[in-house]
């Protein structure tokens, strides 16, 4: 410190150190921001609509479970080739219901509850129908939306 000759080099080092570290800090701020503003894989939050499957994935008289938010939905292809979608949570005790092609009904195996293909409770303990969703075919996608 008392040596005046070392002052310029120390100042040089300090300048370098300050520049580098501030530069690194800016980079560590800008990197997340740049990643944040670049478009994410899925462009928007899926809220009231979701792609439940692809056209051709289901044969007539088949059903599949899909994810709608955090709850399961049931997509059914009817015998005439049309699509229907209902909530797959049984209205009795929240078991997941399934499509029974042989009976052409939706069934909850937990307590033998039956619903028809529109989700109406037909027999057994379910106290009310399953929620119905709207189905649209957009290109190759089967889009289910809450009405």
């Amino acid at each position, binding site marked *: 410190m008392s040596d005046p000759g070392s002052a310029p080099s120390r100042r040089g080092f300090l300048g370098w150190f*300050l520049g580098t570290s501030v530069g690194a800090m800016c980079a560590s701020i800008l990197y997340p921001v740049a990643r944040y503003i670049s478009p994410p894989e899925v462009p928007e939050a899926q809220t009231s609509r979701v792609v439940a499957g692809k056209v051709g994935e289901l044969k007539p008289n088949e059903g599949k479970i899909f994810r709608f938010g955090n709850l399961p939905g049931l997509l059914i292809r009817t015998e005439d080739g049309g699509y229907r979608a209902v909530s797959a949570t049984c209205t009795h005790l929240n078991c*997941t219901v399934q499509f029974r092609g042989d009976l052409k009904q939706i069934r909850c195996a937990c307590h033998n509850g039956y619903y028809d293909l529109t989700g109406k409770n037909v027999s057994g303990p379910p106290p009310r129908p399953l929620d119905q969703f709207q189905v649209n075919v957009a290109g190759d996608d089967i889009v289910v939306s809450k009405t």
Partner: protein
Amino acid sequence: MRNSRLLLRSAPGWWLLLAVPAVVLLALLGAVHAAAAEPQHLAPGGPRPLETSCVSCHAQLDDALLEPTRHTGDDIHFLKGLSCHDCHGGNPAAGADGDPEAAHDRKLGWTGKPVRGQVPAFCARCHADAAFMKRFNPHTRIDQYSEYRTSVHGRRNAEGDERAAVCVDCHGVHSIRAVSDPRSPVYPTRVAETCGTCHADENRMRHYSLATTQYAEYRKSVHARALYEGGDTSAPTCNDCHGSHGAVPPGVENVAAVCGSCHGREATLFRETEAKLKLDLTPCIQCMVCHGNHAVSPPTDGMVGVGADSTCTGCHVEEDKGYKAAVRMADSIHGLVERLREASDRLDLAERAGVEVGPDRFALQEARDQLVEARVLVHSFDLERFLIAAQKGIAAADAGVAAGKRAAAELRTRRAGLGLSLVIIVAVIIALALKVREVDRKPAT
């Protein structure tokens, strides 16, 4: 007889119950039918029943003779437009003219209070008359009386047992309400209590050498919990298993059919195994051997296997085939439950730390469904079939565990990033501090 029993069991209980007041109604109407010339006002829309002289006179009497007039506002018969004389006969017009003797003329069909043993027939005069009942409700049932005749209550009644239950014991007398009315003694949440008034009474049951513990046991059962605490009126109460008007104890051979009306998968699997093995399993493994009857408790995983709570070891002895199968089933279920818990815990942990696990949590639902399936498949007593579901579930749960580990890895990456940026920030702070020292040393100009 057998047909009607089956009908009883397959029909949802509430439906039967709903029909009961209608039957009583029919019977009351039938009384008029039988005893007097058909009154013209019996179709809905006739003169208002409260205006009859029966009500106006009895309202000034005491005690038992006054009591019926208190219920003219809540009894379904009154609400449907019927009045006292439609069941009890008599001539209210004469009463209105100030002649009580003429009003109570037995020749004009006045019956007075029916004898207790005659009550079912009294009610059935209307309630078993299809043409009559359909005036009030085209869907109403009219088989309650014939069912009653098949029941133990009805058979005893026919034998002249005055103590045997008749219509009014369950439905009440002059304040009969629709079964859908929560104040009705036969509304689902009140059925057990109503049956219990006799069946839990030692004095009454002593005569028949019947146990009186059913009501207390039922109140402890999983069914009662669903009904009273869960408010699920579809949960079974007495009549859902025993029938309403045709109340009988289910025979041993019918227990599975009774339980199977709601627990259909279990019953089907049970029957399939029976058929496959060409065995009659009925006497040794009916539902109640493992699950009990009135006090049926929520099933536990411990019931499968050979542990302390095992229900298998009641019949299977060590090293027989069933014993070995029980051990494997128990191991699989416990393995699946354990993995599910682990996966769920890991995902919870990651979620609390801010990592998205929604899709993984959803995928875990598959493992839960397979666990339910495996638990159901225990009732096939078919190890291979059971193992298919159990292994699917274990695979799904393992995937959940793996997802939890991935989420934890993501969390570690975040922390590493934080560590790196903190190092940089500390460096900047040091550099700035050095710079401050430098500029401070410069003399102020």
